[in-house]
């Protein structure tokens, strides 16, 4: 089975976020594999181990993403592809990313593509379904279970807490929701092996794309941090008095009850 994982290098949003020159300050920030893409890598490895085949992890980004791709290789993926657009694209959006990924995948005959359901930084959840549409294959988002028998696939999909059991077939794109699996940590031998696994780096040229073909359709005109919340009012005193005060505040100050 020919399995592809779409992996995004993301800012670790558990870290403190500051701005520099109107942009998110990345100096000294921690970058990670988008957590939902870790589920995707894990699932891909499990499917390969059960069905045979190969797992290729694909990232659109810059040279720094090599680190996250190597981690995926250390977890057990077979190959990594970095589509480095640093030099070619000054500004991209989800259209850009999806167009590049689908162009790359077009002649690869993927049987299964696994993405994350959402990136914790950009947060749009667009890239997976866009790629499927551009490739003309079906997709199922936010899955919590994947069962494959031949080309038949049974998927459990999380829909605002309800579970849909869906039957479909390969080729297919799915997006991973929390609950799909428990991602493994890379083992020491895994990390050693990862250094020698195939790592391909491509540019737009290699995909026969021009900058204009992938020009963004949207533009960010401002980034800002929410106004710093004033420290909330922590009440004190006798508990029943505190509760009385709280209800009064909710009623007359906040006017929400």
């Amino acid at each position: 089975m020919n399995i592809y994982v779409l992996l995004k290098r993301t800012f670790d949003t558990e870290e403190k976020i500051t701005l520099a020159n109107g942009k998110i300050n990345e100096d000294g920030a921690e970058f990670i594999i988008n957590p939902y893409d870790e589920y995707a890598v894990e699932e891909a490895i499990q499917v390969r181990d059960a069905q045979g085949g190969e797992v290729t992890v694909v990232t659109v980004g810059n040279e720094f993403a090599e680190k996250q791709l190597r981690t995926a290789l250390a977890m057990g993926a077979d190959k990594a592809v970095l589509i480095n657009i640093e030099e070619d694209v000054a500004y991209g959006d989800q259209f850009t990313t999806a167009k590049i990924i689908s162009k790359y995948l077009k002649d690869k005959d993927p049987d299964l593509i696994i993405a994350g359901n959402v990136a914790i930084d950009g947060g749009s959840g667009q890239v997976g379904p866009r790629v499927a549409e551009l490739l003309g294959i079906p997709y199922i988002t936010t899955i919590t279970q994947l069962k494959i028998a031949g080309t038949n696939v049974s998927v459990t999909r999380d829909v605002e807490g309800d579970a849909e059991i869906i039957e479909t077939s390969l080729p297919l794109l799915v997006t991973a929701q929390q609950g799909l699996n428990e991602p493994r940590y890379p083992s020491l031998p895994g990390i050693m092996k990862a250094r020698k696994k195939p790592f391909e780096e491509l540019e737009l040229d290699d995909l026969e794309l021009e900058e204009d073909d992938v020009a963004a359709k949207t533009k960010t005109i401002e980034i800002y941090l929410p106004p710093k919340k004033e420290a909330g009012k922590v009440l004190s005193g006798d508990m029943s008095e505190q509760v009385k005060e709280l209800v009064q505040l909710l009623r007359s100050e906040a006017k929400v009850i």
Partner: protein
Amino acid sequence: MARKVLVLGEVRDGSLRNVSFEAIGAANLAADGGEVVGVLVGENIQTLGNEFIQYGADRVITVEDEKLAQYTSDGYAQAVLAVIAAENPEGIIFGHTALGKDLAPRIAGKLNSGLISDVTSIEEAGGNLVFTRPIYSGKAFEKKIVTDGVIFATIRPNNIEPLAKDESRTGDVSSLRVEIKDLRAIIKDVVRKATEGVDLSEAKVVIAGGRGVKSEEGFKPLKELAQVLGGAVGASRGACDADYCDYSLQIGQTGKVVTPDLYIACGISGAIQHLAGMSNSKVIVAINKDPEANIFKIADYGIVGDLFEVVPLLIEECKKLKLNV
């Protein structure tokens, strides 16, 4: 600049969801005096057209087919793309719900258009329609514009005001015949989890419990408080993982995103993945026995104490309030 804007209505259990009325409100801003066209997809939905108009749509187009009785991206994409082809709109608005998140990127992919997801406000500024949306798990916001092609956005429930319902409004409700071809993915079964009472993502008051609630039994007082305040019960991942409640109650990055007027967090520590789902709430109350808990950093009001002592007292006080009005 006057624009024609399409709004996809979302039907649940036979009625339009609140977010669909908010989407009309959003479309009204985007249309800037142009026409707002409601789109309803499903089976036996003709009767909902008038309500959509009373909430501000100028006219409504319905697409009905037995294959559309349940949402599937294949079925809905065919229906919505047919309406788009017939109407050629300059703007499209969906709710940022499970359905909108699943369908909108596909439609945008097909149209080769941009898409601004999870929008919390819309304004006209400097000749542009400017969309604001949270990024970095809600720790920052960005303002975006569309630079090329159709203006397409999904809106986060409970953030954009719907227009007032006007029962005297009338408009045309017409149906478009679309031949729905084979669906490549078939829904075999839907396991409905506890979604009785108020819809969590649209509730004005949310009482949420975390691992501090300690058991399924422990959720009882929270449910009672929710009932007294006409709200819904939610939960952290911690509470769901511990089996104190169903995953359908989970709030956060993986679960539902809520923006109620009042959010009361009981025994929730305030992890970033939880905050991503609720930090936009208008007023946040934290009840936690640990004064250092992160949740206090974003709370407007806090009580340091045992939730099993505080919540019953709150129920008492709120009941008194109801008696006095």
